[in-house]
């Protein structure tokens, strides 16, 4: 095992896959000469040259579509959005082209490609640069949506995403880029669509993805001090969702809390709690509780910003209510 950062893990994943497959290229704003706005692509231009690591103009819709066309023509593009906020400009190509191309063409064309970049709430950057949009994308059949919560998962999942024959939306977390974690030294892949039980517990199930997985683990530590053993599940892939792992946990704990940074309305938490209700209703002793970002645009002021996203304390409180020890 080696200790590396989340951004280094992503960099290793791309470098390893680009060495293995010369169809893979990385394209985006500032990915080459600037070494990445968040330094995820550090050193890749030197390793692979300007043919495969390509700086673009600021033109998200255009280069997203370039990736779609290139994937249809047999290449394996990795299209980096500096952040997912800017990918809103490219949604036509992601939602109306990449996601539907296989279906619309009766299986003739597919778009094996990765759209990746930073997502989630960031720090003090205001409403337009700080938001979680995974529920928009996970709503679309044809897309796979992946959100790693730590360096080891980030590497293994990104390698799987690059090898996948479908379009993968890979949402990294802006605040997690500098997080350090242990990553295996040998080559490994983490299959898409497989959740991970990050902490075993028997009293309450907490489902959380991306940055919220860390919050959930911190909450579980506090709960343990209070005599409550929480089981923390990170779905890792939002779509397709590994609901079996979640249901198995609920069958054991009989209660669940779902945590997400994004807005509450029609969010990922709504989807997961609906599925627990549909297929795990008889296992539940109490209603599923959602802990979500507040339904407001992200404010700038530090105190307001802190109020807008879930806190560890929010998760602790929700877990205590769910398992009847509030």
């Amino acid at each position, binding site marked *: 095992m080696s200790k590396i950062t989340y951004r280094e893990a992503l960099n290793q994943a791309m470098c390893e896959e680009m060495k293995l497959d010369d169809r893979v*290229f990385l394209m985006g704003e500032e990915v080459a000469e600037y070494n990445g706005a968040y330094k995820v692509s550090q050193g890749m231009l030197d390793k692979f040259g300007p*043919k495969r690591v390509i700086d*673009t*103009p600021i*033109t998200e*819709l*255009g*280069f*997203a*579509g*370039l*990736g*779609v*066309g*290139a*994937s*249809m*023509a*047999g*290449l394996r*593009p990795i299209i980096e959005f500096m952040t997912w906020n800017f990918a809103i400009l490219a949604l*036509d*190509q992601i939602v*109306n*082209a990449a996601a539907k191309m*296989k*279906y*619309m*063409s*009766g*299986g*003739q*064309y*597919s778009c*094996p490609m990765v759209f990746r970049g930073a997502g989630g709430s960031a720090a003090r950057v205001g409403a337009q640069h700080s938001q979680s949009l995974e529920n928009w994308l996970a709503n679309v*059949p*044809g897309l*796979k949506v992946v959100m790693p919560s730590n360096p080891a998962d980030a590497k293994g999942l990104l390698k799987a995403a690059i090898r*996948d*024959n*479908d379009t993968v939306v890979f949402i990294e977390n802006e605040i997690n880029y500098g997080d350090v974690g242990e990553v295996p030294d040998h080559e490994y892949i983490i*299959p*898409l*669509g*497989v959740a991970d039980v990050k902490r075993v517990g028997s009293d309450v199930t907490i489902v959380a993805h991306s940055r919220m997985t860390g919050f959930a683990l911190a909450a579980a530590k506090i709960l343990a001090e209070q005599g409550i053993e929480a089981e923390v599940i990170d779905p890792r*892939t939002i779509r*397709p*969702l*590994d*609901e*079996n792992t979640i249901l198995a946990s609920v069958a054991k704990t009989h209660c669940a809390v779902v945590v997400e940074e994004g807005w509450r309305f029609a969010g990922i938490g709504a989807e997961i709690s609906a*599925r627990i209700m*549909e*297929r795990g209703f008889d296992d539940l002793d109490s209603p599923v509780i959602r802990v979500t970002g507040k339904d407001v645009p992200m404010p700038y002021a530090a105190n307001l910003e802190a109020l807008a996203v879930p806190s560890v304390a929010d998760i602790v409180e929700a877990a205590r209510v769910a398992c009847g020890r509030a």
Partner: protein
Amino acid sequence: MPCHSSLGIIRAKYNYGGTMPAKQKQEAGITHDGLFYPEARLHEMHDKMLFIRRFEEKAGQLYGLKKIGGFCHLCNGQEAVCVGLHQASETTDYMMTSYRDHGHILARGTDATAVMAELLGKAGGIVKGKGGSMHMFDIEKNFAGGNGIVGEQVPIGLGFGFSSRYKDDGRVTICIMGDGGINQGAVYESFNMAALWKLPIVFVVENNQYAMGTSLERASAETQLFKRGISFKIPGMKIDGMDVLEFEKKMREAMDHARSGKGPMLVEAMTYRYRGHSMSDPATYRTRAEVDEWRSGRDPIARLQAQMIEAGLATEEHFKQLDKDIKKEVAAIGKAAEAQPEPDASELWTDIYSDPIENAYPYPGKVN
């Protein structure tokens, strides 16, 4: 009937696509602006245009009978562009267009019964009945749609062009849009990158002068659309899209430019659609006289027929008989396609993912 001034009757040796001094030419054909078209190729071009015209009329008829549903955009009047583009390109070249796609995919040589079956939503449709009129694809013919969002195919074409440079495969991408599509921002994002990286792409604007019901003058500050590439240093060319020989000749120059590594070209094909924007459009925004002027004065099929008759390559009787035969053929295609079954219900769940994930909801669709 209007004839092009450079029309000539020449006997010449077969000389596909090239130029040669007139004195060496012996085979029957027409030399247009220095380019010799042998008789067989003229017939092929004519027959394809006429076939597309009659196919579209049949589609219109089946739409009227409510057998074809949804949106259905016909290309009557624009056949010379469809056929000229195909003739000027190699089968390995990539092509993609908007939703007005029947004529292009037919010109490309896709099985017409599969195209008709697609319109009818049948199992044997070219995309299994999942796409309909707007989403025709044929990977065997390098035809990448059939794209329903105006201008969407332009960044996609950029990607095909990028892949050709990446793989150095010598292919050119023909990326077709309309005079409506060219006002989309995605087009200029694509122009910029195509020119910046000198990608082998010919952008073709089918300027039929109306974006749905909005005339070119009401939608475009610069109505000379071939100039729209100037600020990206993309050379532009305006071509008569109602003259298949002229169109093909100039289109070849554009293809050569792109193939030689000089970067993209922008071609504006001046054309006209005889029908409304789609089947639900009565086209009240233009006068009957205007439509008639194009229809009877500049029709690409009548024009080529006149040229061929004048060159002694065919007779009016030949064309009359041929038209009857093609109408019969199209009727038979319509019947054969109508007789096909609808797609199996299981097709609802196929072609969504290449690599399904077994333990994950909702695929393979066990619970919903």
